[in-house]
């Protein structure tokens, strides 16, 4: 660790703190319908959809529209991949994608996971990347934002029958939030070196006379939305580590800021919509504590370097001429600090883009992304998904607090009753059931996909199933996931991890919206205090910890101890 590395982290955190109220305030106005610049485009679209911007939907209708819309998008993406060989914008002449891989990729992008079983530049045509992947990047992100806003309305509304209108929320998320930010951001990325072209791959003759084919494409436009929408599916196989996706530390900062921007902003939107800004900052603070702990552990573990490499003559010491540290699977322009900050950001949010190969991280540094995802990605989290995931833990936290003092739990003026706690528990339990259940099945049937021996092999498989269930999409990429078994199981994990949470969340939103608010009294537990922030943080850590500690002990912790003892596998 060095002063400059720590300063980079501080600057990033300060930037997010500054932007949170700005974007949060803007989104509040968007979802309240106070931004009307594109009303001329919205109106005919709603009419075409058979709705109006004043129609208020019951939660079942809201959920139904969302599910059918996601299904339609997934089917279209599947079809595109299967026939891309016959369609235009395919200068590299890539053929149809295999059925299991196409299913996996469709599930992956429709659920905002963006797990890459495919290698971008060797599998997908420009058309599939644009009209397939980029579209899902936008709409899966917008769906997540819509669900979060619907849940916020559940808390904010009084005795209401509906929670908003999915068509309207989705359209406004795309038109007013995602698209404008993406156009500006993508052009900034191009100015800083990210390619954006439909020209075929370039043929170069290197300085030593060898031939080098350089894959190109419309990269910048996909980069911006994949980070802003916490999607994470790369244009190229190695994702944001590729010098074309992320040519310098400035583009890296833009990427990281984009990943956190909307998720952090939604905590503020929540505060504003329930009429108490402090409630939003309390959530933000709890997320911030968990985030900083993760950054410190990961950065510390990587800076120390790999003892097995020092022993054989690699110089990993910090000096004025090099940052040192464990450089396997990292890029020189980012070094250790920026790489590790990105790794924690991308797994705290459900982005899954990577600038360093997580498979090669030191055991404890690799455990941080794992734990971030196991906690349900509630540290800022995916756009929308982070907020509604955190809300589940909030409900549990006020429930536990209520039990301790013997009062009916309340949160921002709403009584929390048995139905909400049951639904929240269902959503929270779907996670470990899916990760450990499908993961164990995969270990029994598909251990041949493990690249590394020893505890690291278990970490590879575990990471895949955690990442898929949490809709993250990053990988310990040595794991050979592109088999029929894993493509299928991981595809299932992504669908369960997404919809087994969204549907209960919308049901909670519906139940809360219908309820009358309770007045604040002297006995009300203040949910903006330091005490509540501590309680919430502990609930998140304890639930995650109790569920996953055994498997973490067998994977990364065992590997850390072996490596310290000089044991290789």
């Amino acid at each position, binding site marked *: 660790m060095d002063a400059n590395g720590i300063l980079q982290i501080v600057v990033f955190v300060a930037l997010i703190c500054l932007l949170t109220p700005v974007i949060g305030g803007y989104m509040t106005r968007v979802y309240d319908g106070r931004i009307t610049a594109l009303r001329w485009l919205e109106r005919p679209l709603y009419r075409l959809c058979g709705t109006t911007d004043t129609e208020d939907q019951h939660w079942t209708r809201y959920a139904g529209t969302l599910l059918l819309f996601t299904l339609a998008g997934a089917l279209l993406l599947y079809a595109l991949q299967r026939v891309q060989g016959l369609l235009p914008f395919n200068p590299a002449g890539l053929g149809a994608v295999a059925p299991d891989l196409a299913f996996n990729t469709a599930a992956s992008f429709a659920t905002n996971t963006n797990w890459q079983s495919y290698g971008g530049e060797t599998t997908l045509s420009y058309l599939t990347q644009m009209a397939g992947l980029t579209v899902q990047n936008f709409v899966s992100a917008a769906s997540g934002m819509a669900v979060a806003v619907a849940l916020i309305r559940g808390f904010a509304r009084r005795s209401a029958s509906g929670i908003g209108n999915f068509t309207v929320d989705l359209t406004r998320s795309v038109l007013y939030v995602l698209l404008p930010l993406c156009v500006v951001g993508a052009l900034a990325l191009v100015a800083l070196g990210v390619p954006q072209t439909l020209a075929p791959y370039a043929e170069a003759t290197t300085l030593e006379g060898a031939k080098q084919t350089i894959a190109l494409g419309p990269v910048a436009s996909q980069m911006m939305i994949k980070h802003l929408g916490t999607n994470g599916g790369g244009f190229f196989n190695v994702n944001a580590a590729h010098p074309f996706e992320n040519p310098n530390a400035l583009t890296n900062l833009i990427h990281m800021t984009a990943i956190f921007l909307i998720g952090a902003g939604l905590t503020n939107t929540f505060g504003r919509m329930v009429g108490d800004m402090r409630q939003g900052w309390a959530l933000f603070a709890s997320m911030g504590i968990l985030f900083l702990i993760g950054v410190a552990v990961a950065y510390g573990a990587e800076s120390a370097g790999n003892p097995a490499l020092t022993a054989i003559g690699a110089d990993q010491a910090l000096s004025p001429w090099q*940052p040192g540290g464990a450089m396997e699977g990292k890029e020189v322009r980012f070094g250790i600090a920026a790489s590790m900050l990105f790794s924690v950001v991308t797994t705290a949010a459900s982005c899954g883009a990577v600038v360093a190969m997580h498979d090669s991280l030191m055991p404890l540094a690799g455990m941080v992304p794992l734990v971030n995802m196991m906690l349900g990605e509630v540290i800022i989290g995916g756009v929308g998904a982070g907020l509604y995931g955190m809300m589940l833990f909030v409900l549990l936290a006020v429930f536990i607090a209520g039990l301790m003092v013997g009062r009916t739990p309340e949160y921002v003026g709403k009584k929390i009753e048995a139905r909400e706690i049951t639904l929240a528990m269902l959503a929270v339990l779907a996670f470990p059931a899916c990760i450990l259940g499908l993961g164990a099945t995969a270990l029994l049937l598909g251990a041949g996909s493990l690249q590394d021996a020893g505890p690291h092999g278990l970490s590879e498989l575990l990471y895949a199933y955690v990442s898929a269930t949490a809709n993250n999409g990053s990988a310990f990429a040595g794991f050979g996931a592109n088999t029929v078994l894993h493509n299928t199981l991981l595809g299932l994990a992504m669908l369960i991890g997404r919809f087994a949470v969204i549907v209960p969340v919308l049901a909670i939103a519906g139940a809360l919206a219908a309820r009358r608010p309770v007045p604040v009294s002297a006995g009300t537990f203040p949910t903006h205090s330091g005490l509540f922030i501590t309680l919430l943080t502990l609930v998140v850590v304890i639930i995650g910890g109790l569920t996953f500690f055994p498997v973490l002990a067998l994977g990364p912790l065992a590997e850390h101890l072996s490596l310290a003892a000089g044991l290789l596998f």
Partner: protein
Amino acid sequence: MLSLLRPALVLTGVMTVVTGLAYPLAVTGLAETLFPRQAGGSLVHDNGTVIGSDLIGQTFTRPGYFQGRPSAAGTGYDAANSSGSNLGPSSRPLVDAVAERVNTLRAANPDAPAQVPVDLVTASASGLDPHITPAAALWQVPRIARERRLPAPALRDLIHEMTEGRDLGLLGEPRVNVLRLNRALDARWPLSS
């Protein structure tokens, strides 16, 4: 059911056109007008032929050139097949590969310090890393000086001149672009002379 299906289908169609075609094509048009060089991949031309990209590393094996990092992309620096090694930290294949690289480098650089800068013996994340650390460039100076019959201080000056600082003086790490460094080397002290 039908009333649910209608928004699903209409939205899918409209969003595909707006975000999947209009957005990337508009950005492409703007990018190619405003920043044609970057939009095209920052390609480097020499007498009309493309010799690579400023952003993409390439293989250097001749002893008179500075070498880049080990690459796991295809057979090495395959810019149509990016990849890292993905070997875990406790993996014996990783440690064996690093040991072999250390030995090869030591044999080719007998006058350099015994400890080799870590980026020269570890595979990058992309397999296309265009940079090495200043430490890795300085470590190769004795070999280049011998091959090109140059005084070492002149080479060190060149490296410091070619070192790119942190972005905004703060972000990322100082680095040297290997292709640019080798081109500067050829321009000043051609190998044939």
